[in-house]
Every structure is written in structure tokens, then in C-alpha cells.
């Protein structure tokens, strides 16, 4: 550390350590601009490839699928056997039933948990001791559950619902397992939706003498509804596309499941086959790739519709928030 005075250091434009000549600077900048061009070209390519992969996968499945999809394909049941004959009617019905039953189980529980975490746990965060502990345990539980791979839910559902509780391969076993899978999704989206509800809403209602639950029920929940519904629709998508869980809990029967309205008990204990499962059986166990593509096309269209619904809902959510701000 040579101790020169600050003055001399500052006032020395002449003995600069590093002086690029004009042309050096220009040459280096030209090089940097070229590097940038190339790098950005690669980034554009990455974005383009993502879109192209999507178009390729969706386009391929839709085009191939379109060749087998007709009214009969949609309205007759699979004939079974190794050639994959028949249509896919029963798998559409089974998918709808399973989605309905799973959401029926998961939505109230998930929304309830979300409400608790946002509306009630907040007031406890200040209080130390076991209650604060409880909240962090719950949060850990939700976060961890969200990371559990679906085959583990399947394994668990198989052990608990299929064998231990003796439901067998059935709608109820599959729906309970599926509910565990989507529970964290619903909890999280509910929490997010509730957090966007402005504070004055609650205070206004509480100030009028409403209890906390009355406030939640009449004021907070309606305001958060689009967000909560988004979470539910998201879960519908998860169940429609899920295969591993149902592969080990739903059996694979391609017969029409009993009507949940007329024969509720039979319905709960009947096995079934969702569209995704049907696709898997067709592709893996038979050589009926054309039928698999047909099923895949219906599946992909459902998923696109579900995504559109989610986009529409979150768009509306944003709009209503901006409208109130």
C-alpha cells in the first residue's frame, strides 16, 4: 500500500492505468455487440423451440387422433382385447365421475384449510408457544405434500384404501387418493386468492358487528371466489391428466361405471378407467396406437379447454382487483 496523497491520485489524468484508444474501444464494442447478437439469437431460438415443441406434440396428437375420432368412437365403449377395438365412451364418463368425486372430497377440505391459514392463523402468528408451532407444522405439511410424487400417493392409496380398508380397485379409493394429490393445489390457490382481498373489506364488516365467520362467509369468500375456482379448475386438470395414482387404485375396468345418482354405493365401489389410463393401456398393452392417438386428442382438447378456463378466470380476477383498487 504505497501512501500517496489523495490529491495526486485524483488529479492524474495523464498516468491513467488503463487507456483504451478509440479504435480499441470500438473494436471491443463491435465484438461485444456480436456476442450479444449471437446470444440473443440462441435465446430467441429457445423460446421458439418451446412453442414449436408444443405445436408439434399437440398438433401431432390432434391430427393423428382426428383420423379415428367420430361419433361412434366417442359413444361406444372399448371392446377390450388386445387389438384395442371399440370406442372410448365409458372412459369419458369415468373421467367425469372421478373428477367430480375427487373435487367433492378435496375442495371443501382444501378451501377450509386455506381459510384457516390466511384468516385465522395470522392472528396466532404473534402468539408464541404451541399454536405458532402448529401453524409452521401445517405449512411444512402442505409444502411437503405438494412435492410428493404421484406414484407415492398411488402406493399409499393402494395400501390404505384398496387393501387395508378393503375398498378394492374402486372410484372411492381412487378419488380419496386423488384428493390427497390435489389438496395442496387447492390450499395454495385459496390462500393466494384470500390474500388479495383488501383489508378494509374485513374491517368494514367486523366493525358492523359481524363475527369473523360471518365476515369470511359473506365478504371475504365471495371476493376471493374467482381465485378459489381457478384452484379447483387447476385440480380438475391435474386429475384429468393424472395416470400413476389411478393406475394403482382404480383398476382399469372399461365397463360403464354405475350411475352415482341411481346406484351410489355400487358407483363408489366400482372400478373404472379414465381417458388417460385408457390411453396408457392402448399404447402400452395393445398395439392400437391409432386409438391411443384418438384418446390422446380428446384428452389434449380437454386440457386446452381447462387451461383456457383458468386463463379466463385469472384474467377476471385481475380485472376485478384493478376495478376495486
Amino acid at each position, binding site marked *: 500500500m504505497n501512501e500517496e496523497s*489523495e490529491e495526486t*491520485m*485524483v488529479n492524474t489524468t495523464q498516468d491513467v*492505468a*488503463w487507456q*483504451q484508444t478509440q479504435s480499441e*474501444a470500438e473494436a*471491443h*464494442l463491435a465484438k461485444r*455487440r456480436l456476442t450479444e447478437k449471437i446470444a440473443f439469437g440462441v435465446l430467441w431460438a429457445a423460446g421458439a423451440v418451446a412453442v414449436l415443441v408444443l405445436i408439434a406434440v399437440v398438433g401431432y396428437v390432434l391430427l393423428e387422433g382426428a383420423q379415428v375420432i367420430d361419433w361412434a368412437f366417442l359413444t361406444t365403449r372399448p371392446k377390450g382385447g388386445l387389438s384395442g377395438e371399440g370406442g372410448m365412451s365409458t372412459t369419458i364418463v369415468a373421467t367425469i365421475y372421478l373428477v367430480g368425486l375427487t373435487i367433492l372430497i378435496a375442495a371443501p377440505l382444501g378451501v377450509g384449510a386455506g381459510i384457516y391459514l390466511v384468516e385465522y392463523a395470522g392472528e396466532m402468528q404473534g402468539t408464541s408457544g404451541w399454536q405458532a408451532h402448529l401453524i409452521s407444522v401445517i405449512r411444512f405439511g402442505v409444502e411437503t405434500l405438494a412435492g410428493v410424487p404421484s406414484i407415492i400417493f398411488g402406493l399409499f392409496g393402494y395400501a390404505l384404501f384398496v387393501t387395508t380398508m378393503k375398498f378394492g380397485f374402486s372410484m372411492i379409493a381412487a378419488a380419496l387418493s386423488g384428493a390427497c394429490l390435489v389438496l395442496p393445489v387447492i390450499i395454495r390457490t385459496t390462500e393466494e386468492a384470500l390474500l388479495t382481498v383488501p383489508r378494509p373489506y374485513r374491517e368494514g364488516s367486523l366493525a358492523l358487528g359481524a363475527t369473523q365467520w360471518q365476515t369470511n362467509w359473506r365478504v371475504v369468500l365471495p371476493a376471493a371466489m374467482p381465485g378459489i375456482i381457478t384452484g379447483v379448475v387447476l385440480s380438475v386438470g391435474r386429475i384429468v391428466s393424472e395416470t400413476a395414482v389411478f393406475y394403482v387404485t382404480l383398476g382399469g375396468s372399461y365397463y360403464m361405471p354405475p350411475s352415482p345418482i341411481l346406484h351410489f354405493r355400487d358407483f363408489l365401489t366400482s372400478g373404472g378407467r379414465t381417458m388417460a389410463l385408457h390411453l396408457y393401456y392402448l399404447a402400452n398393452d395393445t398395439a392400437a396406437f391409432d386409438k391411443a392417438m384418438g384418446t390422446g386428442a380428446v384428452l389434449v382438447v380437454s386440457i386446452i379447454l381447462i387451461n383456457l378456463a383458468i386463463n379466463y378466470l385469472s384474467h377476471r380476477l385481475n380485472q376485478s382487483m384493478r376495478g376495486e383498487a
Partner: protein
Amino acid sequence: MTGSEIKLETQNFDLYYGNFQALDDISLQIPANQVTAIIGPSGCGKSTFLRAFNRMNDLIPGVHTDGEISMEGENIFNMDVVALRRRVGMVFQRPNPFPKSIYDNVTYGPRVNGLRDRDKLDEIAERSLRGAALWDEVKDDLGKSGLALSGGQQQRLCIARALAVEPDVILMDEPASALDPIATLRIEELIRELKEDYTIVIVTHNMQQAGRVSDYTAFFYTDESRTGILVEFDNTKKIFTNPSDQRTEDYITGRFG
């Protein structure tokens, strides 16, 4: 403005954020190796004007401009913006060191400009930190994160970082507003030293500060109908003792703003 060389010049310069006009027909000349202060009430376009000189406003979507800005006679909008920014450095209102070591902060500029030589980088680091009056406080710990310094030290680090690329001009947007009085005085002292080698343009809200550090002062103004108008530009002494516009006098004597 006789006697001193002109570094930067704006001619009938307008700037729009979308449809909103934030600078209205500004023409002035910034003399070289002097400190020019820009003052005016909040929202009158001081920062916008300052950021025009290194085209920082290019980063904001929807900005467009009219008129001309030139540096040493060359239109800055015809220059490569990267080359321009190398010659026109900037110190921001809030100290914004990168989350890197002090050494990496100071040598960032030279390195992006292609300097790899370790010895030279060391030399530049020391020179710049000395120039920013920070060397003695950090010389034993150049590997420490820039974020671990105090606010005043962070701001001097940012000044050192700007000096390290050896610019011609340094733009400072309220460089002391986030600092305590002692740190502020150090920065002011530094600004007076730096003008030997650099042309400095500084935005400030603090009249005393403008009076203490600057040679020239531009007074910007906004009213109901227009934003970003230049009311008066002159010697700092003249502006503070004998302004020619009533609005300038009102502002300086604290009658509004």
C-alpha cells in the same frame, strides 16, 4: 458561458413517457470540468433530464424524444448507447452496489470493457477507490460484499465504480439524499475534487448543497399545464443572489416547492 468549453448540449429537447410530455423544449449547454446543478420542485423532470444524457430512459418502454442532445458536438442518439454510457457515467439516488465483492464492483466496468489484466485491474481498483475517498476504509477487505458497507460507503463505492471506467461526464441523481449529514459532506467534498477531471451534472433537492458544490445551476419547473420546463440557467451565484425569474426566486427562498 464564455471562456469554458461545452461538454454537453441539448437543443429543443422533448421527452415523452407515452403520451405524457415530461420534458418540454429544453435547450442548455453544460460546460466541461464544471459542476452543473439541476434543481426544481418534485416531479418537474430533473431525473428524466439527467437520464437523457446517458440514454437511461431507453430502458423504459414507451419513451420517445424530440430534439437533439450532443456531446462534444456529436449527436448522442447516433452513438452506440454502450459507448455513450462508457463516457457518461451515472451515480444513482439510492446506492446500488452489485451483490458482489467491493473489488468486483469497482472492476466491473473495466472488465465489461475488455480489460482482463489482473495487475491493471488492481491498480484501477485502488485508484478509483482512492478517487472516491473510500480506499482507506476498505483497503484491507476488498473481498467483502459491497452490500455489507454503510450507506455512505456504498454510495462512494458506486462513485468509485463509475470512476473506474474513466468517463468524461458523471451524472449524479440526488447522490446524497439517502445519506446522513456527515456522509453527505464527504460526498460534496468529493464532488468538488472530481470536477478537476470530470464534467459533473448533479440533481439535488437541497438548495444549500447546490450552492456549495455547483458552478452553474439550472432551474426546472412544472405547473398545471406543463412539466419539465427550463426556467433559468446561469451561474450558481447569479441564480442564488439575483435570479431573473420570479419563479426561481420564489423557489430558492422557499416560498414553494
